[in-house]
């Protein structure tokens, strides 16, 4: 039974409560549900977390922004081609600090998702993000990015307008900024499309978010020629926040309520805000150049390999 089936059972039990009148039975049932949740929704498998990261009720970027910012103003367009609605960007105030926020926006309904292109950005989206980040650099505002995308959009127009170049340019420019950058994976972090907003001083992940080189389905198709092995792929790919923290890819995990972020959105937002405020405070101690150097050094050191040192045959680096 995967996490979605368990969740359905919880919902079923909850709806039963409403039909009953007796207070005593209600409180007893409530307790039962609570116990079941405790039992069923801890120790999630990697595939459970993939399902949670894609959950249709999972909070989307705009909801986070509404909670995080006292006043947020969105800006549109990349000044070259058009405005990509799968990325929203703007300026807001988080706990008294003016910040630039860039976020990949999923839709809540099918219609909205069609407008948002299921949060799969085109090159103009990345170029809009870059334009706003360059402004943040100019006016010395910290940058916060919220990552939630299955990947950059693979389509005709995207290729014609240089999807690869747009992502590469973002990776390069984000390495060069001298303002603090905080990236938070709030849902799916899919491949280069996610990394293009993810070169940051601090990379955080929500507990049930995933971050991977491609979708587990894609991985199973490429390596095992069978998309139905996706749940096994999720396990071996190390996509969950706990795995990635262990591998040293992310810096911090933001806790979610039991059962996933959608069970108690306010708590999720509160935890996220707290983490951002803390990290901003931490990054304040560094000068611009230090921030930049630390970011470059951080990404310089990623990799898992051995090197044989010929000069000194005693050691392997």
């Amino acid at each position: 039974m995967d996490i979605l089936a368990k969740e359905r059972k919880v919902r079923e039990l909850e709806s039963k409560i409403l039909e009953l009148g007796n207070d005593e039975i209600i409180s007893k049932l409530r307790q039962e549900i609570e116990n079941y949740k405790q039992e069923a929704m801890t120790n999630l498998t990697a595939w459970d977390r993939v399902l949670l990261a894609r959950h249709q009720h999972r909070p989307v970027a705009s909801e986070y922004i509404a909670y995080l910012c006292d006043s947020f103003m969105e800006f549109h367009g990349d000044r070259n081609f058009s405005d990509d609605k799968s990325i929203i960007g703007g300026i807001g105030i988080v706990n008294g600090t003016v910040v630039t926020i860039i976020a990949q926006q999923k839709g809540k309904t099918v219609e909205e998702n069609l407008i948002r292109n299921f949060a799969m950005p085109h090159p103009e989206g990345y170029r809009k993000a870059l334009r706003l980040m360059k402004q943040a650099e100019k006016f010395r505002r910290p940058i916060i990015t919220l990552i939630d995308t299955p990947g950059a959009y693979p389509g005709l127009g995207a290729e014609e307008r240089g999807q690869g170049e747009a992502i590469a340019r973002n990776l390069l420019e984000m390495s060069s900024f001298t303002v603090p950058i905080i990236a938070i994976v709030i849902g799916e972090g899919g491949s280069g499309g996610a990394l293009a907003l993810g070169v940051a001083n601090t990379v955080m992940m929500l507990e049930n978010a995933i971050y991977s080189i491609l979708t587990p389905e894609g991985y199973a198709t490429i390596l095992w020629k069978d998309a139905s092995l996706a749940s096994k792929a999720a396990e071996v790919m190390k996509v969950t926040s706990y795995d990635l923290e262990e591998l040293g890819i992310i810096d911090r995990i933001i806790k979610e309520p039991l059962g996933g972020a959608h069970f108690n959105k306010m708590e999720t937002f509160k935890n996220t805000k707290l983490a951002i405020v803390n990290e901003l405070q931490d990054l304040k101690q560094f000068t611009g150049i230090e921030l930049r150097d630390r970011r470059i050094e951080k990404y310089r050191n990623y990799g898992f390999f051995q090197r044989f040192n010929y000069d000194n045959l005693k050691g392997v680096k």
Partner: protein
Amino acid sequence: MNDLIKAFENRKSSKKQIKIARTKSQISSAKIDVPVGLYEKCPTCKEPVNTKTTIENNFICKNCGDHFRVRAIDRIKITSDSGTFVEKGHGYITLNPLFQDGYEEKVAENKEKTGLDEAYIYGYCEINGISSVIGVMDSYFLMGSMGSVVGEKVTKSFEYAMYKKLPIVIFTASGGARMQEGIFSLMQMAKTSQAVLRHSEMGLLYISVLTHPTTGGVTASFASLGDITLAEPNALIGFAGPRVIEQTINQLLPEGFQRAEFLLEKGFIDAVIHRNEMKTTLGKLLMFHRRFQ
């Protein structure tokens, strides 16, 4: 400790293989596209072509002008002045960070097949008498995919160029990030991009030459960030693979989509250069960028 000894022994044996393979490649190169034999069939025009003539013709089909894929070592041979290439960055050992079944065997198999340590080699060379760093990806090694070692070596090649204050020329040929190394491969995109940034900030030249095929994570990182971007005729260059796009949009792609000429028209590369003129062009570009002072 046992691991270290084992690694060293592997290294020793693989070094032997390199020697053998390289002498072989000097005799009859490109054995995969144009297998050893007097006459071979060109994959594009299906006409029989003389193997020896093809090799002499820089691995271009005499009949239809199709550019065959070239192994890294042969690419260096046809690009740099003979005898000037010095390989740098030896001794990297690919590991299996996510404990994938069969990955180590696959790497070993490809090492044997190509005689290379990994899908990328770099070093010092001279092109038409001008010193430069040259880096070449080999698409015969696991499709030239970028894992931890390739990412590290690409970064190192930029750092070597920075240290020597030299321009760098990179020939890319890659299917993208290496899936078997998962998130580590993804991080190589950021790593190589910041290497380009640091090299560029020293005021040094980076020429990126896109050859068939360059897709995925390599296109979306250092391959697209050259000061000058060249490509070989009819090379497949793109972010998403053609099959993925076809599945997404549910229709067939137009003829010539994602080819070098298409990208030239859309404004993403500076020029499409025939392989026979590549060396002259690179020499000219390096000459253009010699310092005034």
